[in-house]
């Protein structure tokens, strides 16, 4: 339905220059100058397609002799014929022969209704004047619009460059971060290994010491606490075990619910040592939520006691934190790059003239609805009650091959009841302001919007120029 976008036509003829020639061919009604040579008055007339020779007085005699309709340029006799409206002072054009003498004024010079009862006025002069004034006005306006367009294109070029630079910067940052990440990963692994080794050794020593009944103090490690809580010694801590051994800090009499226990285990019903260290152990060490029944205070750690271990552990923790930080930064940069690339991959027109529309939204109220178009993103409709319905997400340019950038398609909006998904076609038209001009729903759930913007203006009019009547 929307395959043709007007680029603005204008063929105003230098009519009067040709006046003298027209006079000669007046007998042959309905032909243009360029066809005059076919209608030189002779004894006979050859149909333009060469199919038939007829007596010349059968030209325009209101009977169709030629298959191509060329013998009746001035009557309605031929089904495939066409009539030339000379329209002196205005635009000349062809009309189908069927519009000759049909009671409707088609040519502004009234030449098509020479035998009907409908009185037609010659309005060409007025139309011509009006159009010329309009065209002049438009030309002025167009100049302004094209200037705006140029600005927007330049703006687009700058934005594009900016974005490209931004992308390059981000890329560089990303590369840096990548290097850092490699180093930090190694560092973290090394630190962790060191700390673990120290701990292992200390635990070994403690376990020996534990056997001594004189031991009054028992610094706790994750492993020891794990072992303490793991009543059945199956190498994992279960919800039951947590409920049996732990209680809230504030109220030791109160038992933990299953949900609370599961939460403490990081959402699992059963954890092994390493998961324990990441979940419950952390909670026990902060000591502000749960505690082991019958025990006061926060379970200590080996690090509390041994400065070597303490140093090693804190070094490992630092390395880990550093890694985390850089990972986060990398992730952020990665996302930014992805977004930017996505943005830059969109086709913004041959001169990237539509780039400036990105990140903008335009609204229009039609009856009880507010429509919003965010170019290259989405279209929505908001009802008076505040309900927002998606009328489509950015799909593609949809103009005809010769002018693809005159239509945008937004698709896969909210599904229609019992029907397909909503979609919107945005027609881009030339205008000074960039704004939504109209919204329609020609078929249910299929929307058509008009977005006017100087960027859609074409310099065509100015190039073709305007001839004035002499």
């Amino acid at each position: 339905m929307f395959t043709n976008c007007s680029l603005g036509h204008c063929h105003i003829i230098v009519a009067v220059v040709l006046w003298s020639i027209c006079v000669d061919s007046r007998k042959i009604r309905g032909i243009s100058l360029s066809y005059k040579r076919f209608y030189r008055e002779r004894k006979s007339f050859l149909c333009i397609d060469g199919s038939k020779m007829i007596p010349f007085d059968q030209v325009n005699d209101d009977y169709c002799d030629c298959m191509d309709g060329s013998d009746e340029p001035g009557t309605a006799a031929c089904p495939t014929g066409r009539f030339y409206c000379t329209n002196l002072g205005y635009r000349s054009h062809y009309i189908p022969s069927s519009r000759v003498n049909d009671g409707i004024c088609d040519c502004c010079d009234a030449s098509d209704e020479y035998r009907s009862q409908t009185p037609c006025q010659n309005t060409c002069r007025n139309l011509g004047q009006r159009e010329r004034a309009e065209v002049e006005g438009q030309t002025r306006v167009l100049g302004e619009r094209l200037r705006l367009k140029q600005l927007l294109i330049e703006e687009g070029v700058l934005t594009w460059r900016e974005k490209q630079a931004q992308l390059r910067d981000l890329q560089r940052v990303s590369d840096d971060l990548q290097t850092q990440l490699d180093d930090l990963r190694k560092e973290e692994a090394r630190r962790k290994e060191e700390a673990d080794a120290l701990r292992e050794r200390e635990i070994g020593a403690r376990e020996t010491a534990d056997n001594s009944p004189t031991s009054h103090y028992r610094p706790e490690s994750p492993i020891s606490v794990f072992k303490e809580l793991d009543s059945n010694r199956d190498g994992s801590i279960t919800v039951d075990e947590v409920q049996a051994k732990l209680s809230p800090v504030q109220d030791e009499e109160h038992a933990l619910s299953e949900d609370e226990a599961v939460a403490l285990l990081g959402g699992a019903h059963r954890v092994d040592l390493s998961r324990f260290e990441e979940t419950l152990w952390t909670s026990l060490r902060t000591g502000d939520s749960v505690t082991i029944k019958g025990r006061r205070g926060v379970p200590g750690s080996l690090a509390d006691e041994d400065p070597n271990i303490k140093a090693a552990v804190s070094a490992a923790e630092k390395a880990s934190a550093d890694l985390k930080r850089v990972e986060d930064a990398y992730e952020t940069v990665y996302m930014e790059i992805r977004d930017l690339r996505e943005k830059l991959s969109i086709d913004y027109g041959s001169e990237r003239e539509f780039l400036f529309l990105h990140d903008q939204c335009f609204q229009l109220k039609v009856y009880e609805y507010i429509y919003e178009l965010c170019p290259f993103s989405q279209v929505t409709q908001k009802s008076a009650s505040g309900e927002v319905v998606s009328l489509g997400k950015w799909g593609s340019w949809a103009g005809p091959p010769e002018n693809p950038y005159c239509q945008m398609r937004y698709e896969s909006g909210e599904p229609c009841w019992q029907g397909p998904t909503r979609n919107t076609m945005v027609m881009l038209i030339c205008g000074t302001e960039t704004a939504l001009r109209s919204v329609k729903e020609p078929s249910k759930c299929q929307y058509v919007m008009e977005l006017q913007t100087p960027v859609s203006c074409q310099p065509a009019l100015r190039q073709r120029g305007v001839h004035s009547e002499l």
Partner: protein
Amino acid sequence: MGPLLVLWLAGCLSGTWAVDRGNFKTCDQSAFCKRQRALKPGQSPYRALLETLELTNTKLTLQLINDNNKVRLLLELYRLQGNMTRVKINELKPLKPRFEVPDVLINDPPTEPLSLLSRDENGVVLSLGADSQRLIVSAKPFRLDIMEGREVLLSLNSRGLLAFEHLRIRKDTCQEVMSLSLSHSKVDPEGTENKEETEAANEPAEGEEEAKEDEKVEDGMWEETFKSHTDSKPNGPSSISLDFSLPGVENVYGIPEHADSLKLKATDGGDPYRLFNLDVFQYEVFNPMALYGAIPVMLSHSAQRTMGIFWLNAAETWVDISSNTAGKTVFGQMLDYVQGSSETPQTDVRWISESGIIDVFIMLGPTPTDVFSQYASLTGTQAFPPLSALAYHQCRWNYNDQEDVAAVDQGFDDHDIPYDFIWLDIEHTDGKRYFTWDPHKFPQPKDMLQGLLDKRRKMVTIVDPHIKVDSSYKIHNEIRSKGFYVKSKDGGDYEGWCWPGNSGYPDFTNPEMRAWWASMFAYDQYEGSMENMYTWNDMNEPSVFNGPEVTMHKDALHGNWENRDLHNLYGLYVQRATAEGLIERSGGVERPFVLARAFFAGSQRYGAVWTGDNAAEWEHLKISIPMCLSLGLVGVSFCGADVGGFFKSPSTELLVRWYQTGAYQPFFRAHAHLDTPRREPWLFGPENTALIREAVRQRYALLPYWYQLFYHAHHSGQPVMRPLWVEYPQDTATFSMDDQFLLGRDLLVHPVTEEGARGVTAYLPGKGEVWFDVHTFQKHNGAQNLYIPVTISSIPVFQRGGSIISRKARVRRSSSCMEHDPYTLFVALSPKRFAQGELYIDDGHTFNFDKQKQFIHRRFSFANNALSSRNLAPGSQFTTFSWVEKIVILGASKPSKATLKTPDGKESQLEFEFDASMSVLTLRKPGVNAGLDWTVVLQ
């Protein structure tokens, strides 16, 4: 789309696309149908009391008595002019008057005297005048036979299914209830027969009651519930039934509206055909369910004779058909033939109606043409539409606003496709308040109409008969204050749910209401209307979304009568009142154009009908042919189906095929549901646009022929679109044919209704006749099945050899633009080099053709190598600018010269061309005025 609509559609659409059969009654769920159908053929309990016979100049009257319950009926027999018999049966003394259908017959049918031929204790024999036709009244059991010579044409009550549920007083308790007349099949236990005899004929009233046998009260006699709706039946059981036997008949047709084959099927083992005007959502094809309209007229046909039965009853009606050959295979029938089976074919028909009286018109033919004339003499003929109404109509639910209308209008011009009417569906109104305009979308309706007028085009706006209950709506307030609404059983205004939400339903049966309604179409009442704006009455069954079976409660009241009595008549009245409004607004000058969905016998007088909400499916394209053919047989010629299909979206091929078919059906309108994508003809690529353009152009070129056919239909009651058997009544091969049809006598159309078809097999009737392909001029012999290869470019259409058809070859933007254009005559010669045709011309839109005889009616004849035009209506006067542009003679031989002779004695030679390969002679520019006498002689 409003929330109401969404709600309603949500309810209706959920799930599948098929009709929800559960919303509509089967015979078993309709109490009276169930009671009546339980009655099996057998000996009738009715007896004619011959001593009560009275014969006057105009009629014979006779009492009948039901020997089981002693209730007496009054039989009236009329011999009507034009070979018809009217049989009326009512209760002799009904408790209160029973409904007799008014306003359907155009007058009191003129009678002819019946004469008594013989009389004895067994019955009487009456002469029906012509053709040794006799009417035999048998007394015991009562039956009627119409005979011609020794042949029985038709019998009534021969199967004993006459049943008349008399009105009775309700007795709620069990001990003292009255009899049900239907129980006659029971053996009388107390020998009331003797008693009755003693009572004789005089005072049947009082003593008789006690004599009646024990009653039987069945469910549904005094109240009936279907789904959530309870029908109170204050008058109790009141149904009637009568059987008709048609010896020698194997084919019956008519009783529209059903989405079924042209030839009616036997209903044994299934439901009867139902006649009850209903808004059936997403109807299915090939079944006997009721649809939007009802015309209780059946035609019977055999190679010997065509007859008609017109059952004048507007209540819910069911028609059972059985046939002794229906179940037989072709082989079985052959076997019967070879073995000389004694059984002659016979079709038995039984009509059952819920209330009213038995009032039957038996149209005795004997030809199809005779039956059409007979029926037309009773109910009138097709309204003669404005010429433009026969052109192409562009509709959609909805053209959204004035800009949309202008864009579509321009689209037709840009793509050089003609159209005459653009239509506005319900969304054009201000909140579904008919006679108003949406102030935002249609702020300047007159500007819009003027824009169309400037292009000599027209518009139709919808005006439905449900009125929004809204105290700020003038139409509602006036109807309410005048008391013009239909009343509910409790006496308040009946209200139901429809497009506007809560709605009232004007009582169109009330003549004052109709006059008021008509006055609302005056230009100063219907604001924004103009003379090029016409009307569409949809939903006039009436449709009531929340009513039983989506229609009005049967106990709703139209004055003193229940909707039960006159339900099927409502739609006719709506269309009538609207058509009268359009006539009045022009001071009686202009012909109206009103399209309606619901209809009844006589609706043809008021405008056009269409086959309602069909679907974009090949089956629906196919069924459009028998549906319109069936309507044509019973008077309604102006019929069409939504081109493209209303629900769903057609494939491009289906859409093109539908345009090609619709171009050759009487009412040619494209329409589409709100939920479907746009489908104006140019939206499917240039190739399909060209195909649709060509189909529409074929229609416009043929408008002179269409117009003449409609004039003929208006004048004589002959259908425009005809089954083949109507013109070839002896050709049994045509009897069940409904995939092709004739327009008038002279064009045979075989639409392509199969997806991806490469060819069709058309039957060309008429032994010794020839047919010419209108596209190629190829000649084919009649009486053969012809395989015709088809492409997507057109459908097969043939012109009968022996006919002359006028066309206007200069197809323009609208039919009005073609008014003064010249004619091309297509003379298709018969093998005997003979041809005949007609041309009708008038101003195209006023009643002046009728009131002032302002028309031209010409007869063209080709014989003895001369083609002449002579005046068929010497009393008429009209002048036209149109002239004869070209004469194309098909099946011609090459003349040495062609001389045109005019009455002033002038002679001139015509140039011509002769195509020897196709034997086509083209005479160049005779140039004579179409209204004058002339002759062309070929030498």
